[in-house]
């Protein structure tokens, strides 16, 4: 606009000057009118305005992926264990019906003191509490063993154990007795050893403390092992105990709300073709499964499979003269199950299947045992168990056609044992309710850890793959998981372990659901080459003149601006 007619165009180079001087006949066209320049500027600006304000937003809208907001930092914190440090305060009631109040108070105090001295794992500690209702304690406790397991919504901590302190004549030292079907420990002491309030460390307190410590030793080691990961948990744990705990954890199934138990009778011939399975399950297994009800549910199915031969890869059993039996080598047991031919497909429905195989060998190979230890059963870790049943042969050297309930007894006793192991139940103490309580605490810990680590994995996944969509239900699942995780943590802190397990179950379910959300994996995948192939034929020919036009305009404006400044 500042260019005046007649003036030479400012960006003329010396070269053009030279050419001009060489060819005198060519003439430079008259400079453009400001209106023409203005029009061209407007045209280019209009095109770019359409691209920037219409084309770009539409492209952005149609190709963007929905990513719901996830609390990434919170999820990572859970995975790193920063948010929650699980603690296990176990409340133990002490009933001393025949002791005076100050004496019992003193006993309680000194025992608690000794216990705290013995304890080296701060996350798991025992809290003693004196109870007054002593009259009906025995009856109540038996009832409690089931009812406390069901107490999930209560505000008070679960009572894990009741210790009854009773005098008994004719005793030199205190002795204890754990009732096998209850959560009650009876401690008998000689009446001469009634702790007087003056003694600081009465032998009775020391005894009770040691008993309790022994009772919860394995549980403590297990929880320490789980919380600390693969590294050894506690210093004081013996290597054997550590080994057995890690072995049990390796063998046991992942926690599930429902387990499918599948009992199969396999035999290489045509007999036995029937068994008293319904009665056997009812008699030998149902009580155990009922006791497990607060932790998991079970479905049972059974089948009879005849003509089940070993796979050709399996080494054949060898006859052992000294044992008078056909023997399988220990290292060959892993090939015992003919996975290709035996119909052991998992049951339909949610939850894992535990397979229990009752194998009746052919009469020509009976009896069959494991070579090394003459055992007749073994566990297949995280899968199930096998039992070799060698029934007495009939007169014509054949297997019996029918297996009665009695002949199944040993097999089902073994199966219930294997079931307990596969579900991760600890081997001590002797009382089943106590072991189940321990299992609840152990499961709550594993679920808490696994849900937390799933959250961490999900956070890392969404961070590392910016192209995957995150639907809204994943975000809601994540928030449910996080709220249930913190609920689990607070339930644990308050000693309500059943409630903790219930929340941890929900957290684990939701965590798995969010992680395995199907829509997060794109149904249609466009590789970058594909996008280039689709976009380039259009954007190339259109983009080049647009960009060149823009550059020219920008250059002209810059030159104008420079000229204006020079003029000024």
């Amino acid at each position, binding site marked *: 606009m500042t260019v005046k007619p007649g003036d030479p*165009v400012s*960006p*003329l*180079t010396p*070269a*053009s000057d*030279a*050419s*001009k001087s060489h060819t005198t*006949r*060519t*003439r*430079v*066209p008259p400079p*453009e009118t400001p209106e*023409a320049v203005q029009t*061209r500027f407007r*045209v*280019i600006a209009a*095109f770019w305005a359409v691209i920037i304000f219409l084309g770009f937003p539409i492209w952005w809208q149609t190709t963007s992926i929905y990513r719901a907001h996830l609390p990434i930092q919170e999820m990572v914190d859970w995975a790193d264990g920063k948010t929650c440090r699980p603690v296990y305060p176990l409340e133990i009631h002490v009933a001393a019906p025949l002791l005076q109040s100050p004496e019992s108070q003193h006993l309680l105090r000194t025992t608690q003191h000794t216990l705290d001295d013995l304890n080296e794992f701060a996350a798991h500690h025992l809290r003693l509490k004196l109870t007054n209702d002593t009259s009906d304690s025995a009856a109540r406790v038996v009832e409690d063993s089931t009812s406390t397991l069901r107490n999930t919504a209560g505000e008070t901590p679960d009572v894990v154990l009741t210790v009854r302190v009773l005098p008994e004549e004719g005793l030199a030292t205190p002795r204890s007795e754990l009732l096998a079907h209850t959560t009650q420990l009876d401690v008998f002491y000689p009446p001469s050893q009634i702790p007087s309030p003056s003694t600081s460390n009465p032998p009775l307190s020391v005894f009770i403390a040691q008993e309790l410590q022994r009772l919860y030793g394995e549980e403590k080691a297990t929880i320490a092992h789980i919380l600390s990961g693969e590294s050894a948990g506690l210093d004081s744990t013996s290597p054997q105990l550590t080994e057995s705990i890690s072995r049990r954890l390796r063998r046991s199934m992942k926690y599930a709300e429902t387990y499918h138990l*599948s009992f199969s009778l396999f035999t290489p011939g*045509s*007999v036995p*073709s*029937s068994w008293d*399975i*319904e009665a056997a399950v009812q008699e030998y297994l149902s009580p155990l499964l009922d006791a497990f009800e607060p932790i998991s549910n079970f*479905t*049972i*199915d*059974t*089948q*009879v499979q*005849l*003509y089940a*031969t070993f796979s050709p890869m399996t080494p054949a059993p060898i006859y052992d003269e000294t044992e008078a039996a056909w023997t399988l080598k220990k290292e060959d047991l892993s090939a015992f199950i003919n996975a290709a*031919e035996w*119909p052991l*497909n998992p*049951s*339909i*429905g949610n939850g894992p299947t535990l397979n229990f195989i009752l194998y009746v060998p052919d009469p020509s190979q009976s009896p069959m045992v494991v070579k090394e230890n003459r055992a007749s059963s073994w566990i297949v870790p995280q899968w199930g168990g096998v039992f070799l049943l060698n029934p007495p042969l009939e007169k014509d050297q054949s297997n019996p056609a029918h297996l009665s309930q009695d002949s199944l007894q040993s097999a089902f006793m073994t199966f219930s044992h294997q079931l307990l192991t596969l579900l991760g139940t600890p081997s001590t103490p002797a009382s089943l309710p106590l072991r189940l309580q321990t299992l609840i605490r152990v499961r709550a810990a594993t679920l808490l850890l696994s849900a937390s680590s799933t959250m961490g994995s999900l956070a890392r996944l969404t961070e590392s793959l910016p192209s995957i969509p995150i639907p809204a239900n994943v975000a809601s699942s994540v928030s449910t998981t996080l709220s249930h995780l913190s609920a689990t943590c607070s339930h644990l802190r308050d000693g309500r372990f059943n409630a903790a397990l219930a929340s941890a179950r929900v957290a684990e379910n939701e965590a798995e659901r969010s992680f395995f959300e199907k829509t997060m994996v794109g149904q249609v995948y466009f590789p970058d080459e594909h996008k280039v*192939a*689709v976009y380039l*034929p*259009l954007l*190339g*020919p*259109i983009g080049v*003149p*647009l960009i060149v*036009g823009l550059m020219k305009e920008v250059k002209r404006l810059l030159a104008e601006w420079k000229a204006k400044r020079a003029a000024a």
Partner: protein
Amino acid sequence: MTALFLCSLLLALAVTPWSSTAFASPDYHEQLFLQPLPQSSLLASFNFRSNTSQQSFDNQHFRYFPRALGQILQHAHTKELHLRFTTGRWDAESWGSRPWRGSKEGGTGVELWAWIDAPGDEEAFAKWITLTQSLSGLFCASLNFVDSTRTTRPVVSFEPAGNHQGADGLHLLHGTLPGEVVCTENLTPFLKLLPCKGKAGISTLFDGHKLFDAAWQSMSVDVQPICTAEGECTVQIEQTVDMVLDIERSKRPRANPIPRPLPNDQLACDTSKPYNSEDTCYPLERITDNAWSLSEVFGRNLDGVCPLTGSDGTSEQSVCLRVPHEKQVFITQEASEIKKDDGFTRCFSLSPSQAFDISVPEQTVTTPVPIEEPILNAERTIVGHGQERGGMRIIFGNPSNTTAVDFILFESLPWFLRPYIHTLQATITGQDGIRREIPTKDLVSSTYYRPAIDRERGTQLELALSVPAASTVTLTYDFEKAILRYTEYPPDANRGFNVAPAVIRILNTPDSAPFYIRSTSLLLPLPTPDFSMPYNVIILTSTVIALAFGTVFNILVRRVVSVDEATALVAQTVKGRLLGKLIALRDRIRPKQTKVE
């Protein structure tokens, strides 16, 4: 006659002796029925049946009932299941009526129908999808492709075979996969469902090489509840395998399967022909039947009996052969032969531990086994030409001179075949051989029609028809071929699209037992695009748009000058300036060189 007899025999066996024991305990039966057919063929019909009480089925205590299948049925709330795997074509003209009256066979490929217990249609469909997915895994078949477009709900074509007392929420769903190739991977799981697993009894004869080499074969699985009048129920699973083997083809050794011409001196020539000479032969038709034996035809021996079969007399005779009594049949020594008094059937009692073989030597027959004429002949073809339209033609022939045939024609057509039902026309050819067009309402007594919805469901057409005695009826209707979306074409799009066989249920059978005929499946060629098309389209449209845009943009932005002005302006462009600089550079180098010189 044959098949009718076969069916009535098996029906009789099923009803009379077994029903007394069927409800006492879970039991198992198996039977093999052999019958030489014309043209050197052999029909082998295997039947396996086991029962379990409803109670142990519900409690998942499986003994003879396969656990995998039982759990699938329970999970999908399926009360009755019928699954068919079929290959080949039953040649009704030479082989006569179908085995089991057609009730144990399906259309080519896989066919599945089931009664599902569900409160509503949607729930039933969800269960149906569960069922097809699970069965797909169990039988290694593509049943998971039975989606809503391949599922129909027939109204009058099927009746439940079991007793469903007090179950009013039953939904019948039917699905077909006409393109499925049935092969050994389907036979292996089928055998695993049997209690004796192909290791003992008649199932030892199954060899995938022979079974799927047959001219026609059909495998079926039927599960249905059977209840007594007292309300005691059992769940019955019945598995059948029917096949028609070509005896000569089956007898070829596996190591040397290529057929070779006979040596000249073994040829039976018609010497009465004038051109008969050393090197010219008009072969005579055989007057004797082929010699065959079980081990030759099946390539295996029959290993004893499955010891689970009941101990009553009838079920021990698990192998039956239908040839005239005068014919010589050799069997293994330990087995015994029982001739039935109908003059044609003989059954064999097998020894439990010994292998069993039947050998029929080559011999001339005077009284051939009568072949029963089929009740109805049906043939369905696609007619017309072009990519856009076509027509369907179905021909029904009633061979009987006395009775008319009432039947239901069930067609389930894919959605991309859009029939025009108003074009339905019928012509009839009577005994006089004159072709007449008649109004369809004279033939069709009732119609059930559910039109297709694109990409959601297919057409379902059920017609109740009647064909008068000794006449042939031709039904035709036109259809339009849809154009599919790019991603909807299968990899082998140019092969054509399978159209499921039509199912024909004959109503007026003598004893009201079900009688089914299935037509062959059809191949429908659809307009198929070139599959690099989308990229071509993208590039072409992009080029057109870019051209148009470039022109418009240039007209708007360019400055118009005269030619000689343009040359001056060129010097100002980047190109001109670069050229100028190059010239200047050359000028600068050249004087230097001259200086050095």
